[in-house]
């Protein structure tokens, strides 16, 4: 039978390869597994995957190609918010459902008929962090953010919501995504009187270097990272300096530590096992976004009993309580993310591993 084509454009190379690479691997892995199980609606599934190298202009071109040439019925991809925003008009115009893997809140606000997304917004991450700070009585913080899209957007969201928690930001520093030394900025924070904790929105190697420099300077204040470092390699890169770092992250990082009754436990364990077996690398939240994206789409196709884009879209929007590795999703016509703050867990790095800080619900 004719294959069902699902398209994807991710940043498998370039500055966001850190995110895009596990996404690409996950998508390939799951389409393969699906086909082993006989595909969808009795038809094989074909994944058409392109690498935009982190360039929004290329992403746009590939999006056109997916729609025009490859005739895909759905799209899972868009590693960065910039690339996603560049591709949205193409899929909107063609009426093809697009599940984005990028963080930016503007992807789903305002809601567009055909656009969904799987990762938490950075706003949720900020809220989770500030809740934690508040609970620990922290009221004055310093921030050091990456200037990449991820860091910048999260910084903005955090600054927007921080007031609601009675927390003031006393220092607000930045570093370039590719910098190899952040001591000057951290030194400034160190010398800012009154700072009680430091927050570092960023992804890639930057936060690891921040964490190391933090230790080098002998800073003893609590250090908060974001979900942008939620992969095992952060602990490896930051080394012993990572001890005590706190961050909000999805369940995937602590799959084995979840309570037995946790609904996500089984899904997370399954994904972790198959990903690590297939790639030899540790799972990350980013791969998890891809997992949820492809699962949501394939389940929607299954439910719609059709590979008709419009029908897939409708089925997607009707998704309720899909248990994924990132959280439990319930879409609605007004909510194309469908995750709440509760899908984030607050983790702390102890003994070189993630530990669940607060008991799960």
């Amino acid at each position, binding site marked *: 039978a004719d294959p069902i084509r699902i398209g994807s454009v991710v940043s498998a190379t370039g500055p966001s390869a850190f995110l895009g690479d596990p996404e690409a691997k996950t998508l390939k892995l799951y389409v393969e597994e699906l086909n082993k199980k006989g595909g969808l609606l009795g038809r094989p599934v074909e994944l058409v995957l392109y690498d935009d190298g982190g360039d929004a202009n290329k992403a746009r071109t590939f999006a056109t190609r997916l729609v025009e040439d490859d005739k895909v019925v759905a799209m899972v991809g868009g590693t960065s918010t910039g690339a996603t925003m560049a591709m949205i008009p193409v899929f909107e115009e063609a009426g093809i459902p697009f599940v984005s893997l990028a963080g930016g809140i503007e992807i789903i606000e305002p809601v567009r008929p055909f656009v969904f997304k799987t990762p938490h917004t950075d706003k949720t991450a900020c809220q989770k962090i500030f809740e934690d700070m508040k609970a620990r009585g922290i009221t004055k913080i310093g921030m050091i953010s990456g200037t990449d899209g991820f860091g910048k957007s999260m910084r903005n969201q955090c600054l927007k919501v921080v007031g609601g928690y009675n927390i003031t930001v006393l220092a607000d520093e930045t*570093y370039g995504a590719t910098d190899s*030394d952040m*001591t000057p900025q951290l030194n400034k924070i160190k010398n800012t009187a009154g700072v009680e904790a430091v927050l570092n929105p960023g992804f890639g190697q930057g936060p690891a270097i921040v964490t190391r420099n933090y230790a080098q300077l002998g800073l003893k204040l609590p250090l908060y990272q974001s979900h942008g470092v939620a992969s095992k390699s952060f602990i490896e890169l930051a080394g012993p300096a990572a001890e005590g770092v706190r961050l909000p992250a999805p369940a995937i990082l602590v799959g084995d530590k979840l309570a037995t009754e946790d609904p996500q436990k089984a899904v997370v364990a399954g994904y972790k096992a198959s990903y690590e077996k297939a790639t030899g690398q540790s799972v990350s939240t980013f791969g998890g976004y891809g997992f949820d994206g492809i699962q949501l789409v394939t389940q929607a196709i299954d439910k719609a009993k059709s590979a008709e884009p419009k029908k897939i879209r409708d089925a997607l929007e009707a998704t309720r309580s899909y248990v994924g590795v990132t959280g439990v999703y319930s879409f609605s016509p007004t909510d194309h993310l469908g995750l709440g703050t509760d899908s984030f867990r607050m983790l702390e790095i102890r003994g070189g591993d993630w530990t669940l800080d607060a008991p799960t619900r």
Partner: protein
Amino acid sequence: MSEFLQLVFSGLTVGAIYALIALGFTLIYNASDVINFAQGDFVMIGGMATVFLMSAGLALPVAAFIAVVASVGVGLLLHRFAIEPARGASPVTLIMITIGASIFIKGVAQIVFDKQFHSLPAFSGDTPIPVGGATLLPQSLWVLGTTLGLVVALYLFLEHTLSGKALLATAANRLAARLVGINVTLILAMAFGLSAAIGALAGVVATPITLTRYDIGTLFALKGFAAAMLGGMGNPVGAVVGGLLIGLLETFGAGYVSSTYKDAVAFLMILFVLFFLPRGLFGGRSVERV
């Protein structure tokens, strides 16, 4: 005061890394007038190969040695199969070949290695050394020491050996170099081999600080190139001074001006220096003869 000192330490560390990369540019430039855009990728090979060899169970010194040798091999292959066949082509063409080579090396590296960031353990521990209220990582001393050693070696080689002179002569006048009996092919191969070795060594000592990834070479090349130009292209001492200066400019820019615009601060300073010394700090003030 301690803050100032801390910035100096950071600046020197970062600057020494740039200096090491800038040194790598010197040899190939001196032999051929070509800026090797794949220079940063030698740095990457040095770091990544050491990481992977160590994870295969080799001790750091052994892994580093093999990584440097491998990088030299890549340098020689690059010369033999890409530069030599295009002999006689203009520098622009050769530069384009090195750009192609850089893309190629990255492409291969992401398959041979992976796309993740990696780090190496610091050679002599992570315990910061407190100095005057500021701290210095032992690895910084490794980087500074390597830079110092290499610049001295390179200076002696270029100024006090016949092979060094032959290298300079080859770039100065290829025709005359051939006429006095210099084997131009061999000289170029040597330049590529040595540059690759310097680059790889830089990668090995810098990776514990900067981390590394298959595509980190582009950034390294950019900073190293800027350092080499600020110092005056082709002059090893200039490369080191240029590197250290850019490192210091960046950290002081970040510390005292704006962390967002610290790269701009560094580049504005370069423009400022070149305005008065159009051939860089050590590029000489020679007047063109007509």
